[in-house]
């Protein structure tokens, strides 16, 4: 069963806030001017794009699919998504993952947490859905999540993973969700599924530097408020599934994120914050206020505009150029943590009067895990072929196709 809704076109951007004439926003404004969008015209464009999607699916043309996923309205509707998502991830119809027995699924260490989260996920189902139907979906959701986890020893469940799974389940159904999530869990979502959140946190270290490259005053404001980046955590690890109310907006973003670099959700976050910069700077420069302003995304965000801005940010400031600054932030956090640990250890030492061995051990541990982390982070930023293809796909979609379509 598929729940299919047509996304409504995004409102044209009237009050873009970037003042610089070459900024992403102003370029975008021009694009909007050029593409007059009557409802009939849009329908026609959608039909044309739909044909292009089907054609690319038939040919398994991943590069074209990436462009289509990124450009306006992504894969347009859920019937097309059902066909295009697996292709985009390079899956074939034969990729099936066998279902282990109930005992195996239920014995998994994360089973209870999954049940707990799925039981609380009512909000993620269409409001009109009958309770019985919803309940059976929730059972399937638990099953789907457990199957992926059992199939991938070493992957850890996180709260929010269920938000991603439910999105796929409602569009592509049970079996395809398993294969899609299996693939994504090893690629785009891999960092989030580590034993701890160190790498996830480090991805968030990219947020302020990206914002700062466009608007240094805004970055300064955010840092001064000590708001941190936790307001963007759920954006990143659920691909906005946890915070957006419109299902059509969520799936449209999923088109975009599947087609792009794993850090694209952070670029999207930066675009969202930059878009609200006036509101933010009007806010009292204190953590609680900035945090609650930013963590609530207004229902009518200009989604298409933000998607294209995120893409432009990515082209102008690709991960390699942000990496150094993000690393400085990581080092700062590590230093603060070490200082705090040292203070705590000192306090303990005073209390207990002994054990110097413990201290040196923990210092050793730090440096080792640091190295491992850097290694894997470098791997996905330089990530060879995939990164290159994505850059190409993004550039094309934003540079040319955007204006035409």
């Amino acid at each position: 069963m598929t729940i299919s809704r047509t996304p409504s076109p995004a409102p044209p951007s009237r009050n873009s806030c970037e003042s610089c004439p070459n900024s992403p926003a102003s370029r975008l404004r021009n694009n909007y001017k050029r593409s007059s969008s009557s409802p009939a015209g849009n329908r026609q464009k959608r039909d044309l794009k739909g044909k292009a999607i089907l054609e690319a699916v038939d040919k398994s043309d991943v590069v074209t699919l990436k462009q289509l996923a990124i450009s306006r309205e992504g894969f347009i509707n859920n019937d097309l998504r059902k066909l295009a998502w697996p292709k985009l991830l390079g899956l074939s119809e034969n990729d099936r993952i066998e279902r282990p027995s109930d005992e195996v699924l239920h014995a998994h260490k994360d089973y209870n947490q999954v049940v707990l989260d799925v039981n609380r996920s009512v909000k993620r189902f269409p409001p009109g859905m009958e309770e019985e139907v919803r309940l059976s979906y929730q059972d399937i959701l638990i099953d789907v999540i457990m199957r992926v986890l059992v199939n991938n020893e070493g992957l850890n469940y996180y709260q929010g993973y269920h938000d991603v799974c439910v999105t796929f389940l409602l569009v592509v159904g049970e079996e395809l969700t398993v294969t899609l999530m299996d693939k994504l869990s090893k690629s785009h979502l891999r960092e989030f599924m580590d034993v701890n959140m160190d790498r996830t946190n480090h991805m968030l270290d990219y947020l302020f530097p990206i914002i700062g490259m466009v608007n240094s005053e805004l970055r300064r404001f955010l840092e001064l408020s000590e708001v941190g980046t936790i307001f963007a955590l759920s954006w990143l690890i659920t691909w906005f599934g946890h915070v957006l109310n419109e299902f059509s907006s969520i799936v449209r973003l999923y088109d975009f994120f599947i087609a792009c670099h794993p850090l694209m959700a952070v670029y999207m976050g930066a675009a969202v914050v930059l878009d609200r910069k006036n509101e933010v700077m009007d806010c009292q420069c204190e953590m609680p206020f900035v945090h609650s302003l930013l963590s609530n995304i207004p229902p009518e965000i200009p989604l298409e505009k933000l998607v294209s801005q995120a893409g432009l940010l990515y082209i102008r400031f690709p991960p390699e150029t942000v990496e150094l600054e993000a690393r400085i932030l990581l080092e700062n956090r590590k230093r603060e943590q070490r200082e705090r640990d040292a203070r705590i250890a000192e306090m303990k030492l005073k209390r207990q009067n002994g054990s110097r061995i413990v201290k040196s051990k923990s210092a050793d541990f730090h440096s080792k895990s640091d190295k491992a982390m850097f290694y894997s982070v470098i791997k996905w930023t330089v990530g060879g072929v995939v990164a290159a293809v994505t850059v190409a796909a993004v550039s094309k979609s934003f540079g040319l196709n955007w204006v035409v379509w």
Partner: protein
Amino acid sequence: MDSDEVEQFDYLFKIVLIGDAGVGKTCIVQRFKSGLFMEQYGSTIGVDFTMKTIVIDDKKIKLQIWDTAGQERFKTITQSYYRSAHAVLLVYDITKEKSFENIEKWLEDVRKYTGNNVLKVLIGNKCDLEQARRISTEKAKLFSEKYNMFSMIEVSAKDCCNINESFINLTKELVSLHSDSKFISNDINLVLGERERQTEERGRYGTREYR
């Protein structure tokens, strides 16, 4: 959400809720904030912030309430929110032994990441589920005394039992503890002088508050 109104208040306290996933932290906060119980808030990812103003003895008191995620893996993130807390509510589920046992671990973090004089309150939630109870009131009481907590109280976010009371008692205690200093910073991490400098720079920005 009136942003032009510059709110006056006598006290401002920061309260943090911690405890295992699913014990009902979000339900408790929402019950206190809006008087409603809904089963569909969803799991907390990261930290949620709520503000509530209450009046006690003609004093207007603003409570900044931080509702943290309970899943173990979020701990490293939520810990940074403990600092400068005036009070910590440690929540367990009276029907889940594990959630009570883990309070000891949560306390360890409180010791590490908050100031010395932080007020600790032990809260046993879901006391509407009497037939499924696994933790006796006496056991929890003894525990709270052993660890020098301000109080122990059993509540139900579902039946709205003791929710307001626990916040109000806690606030009264905070007021009496801090009655001579009105804007108390309980921040163990700040170097003297740094705060003044930062406050000055912050002052240049807007005054709108969001809740």
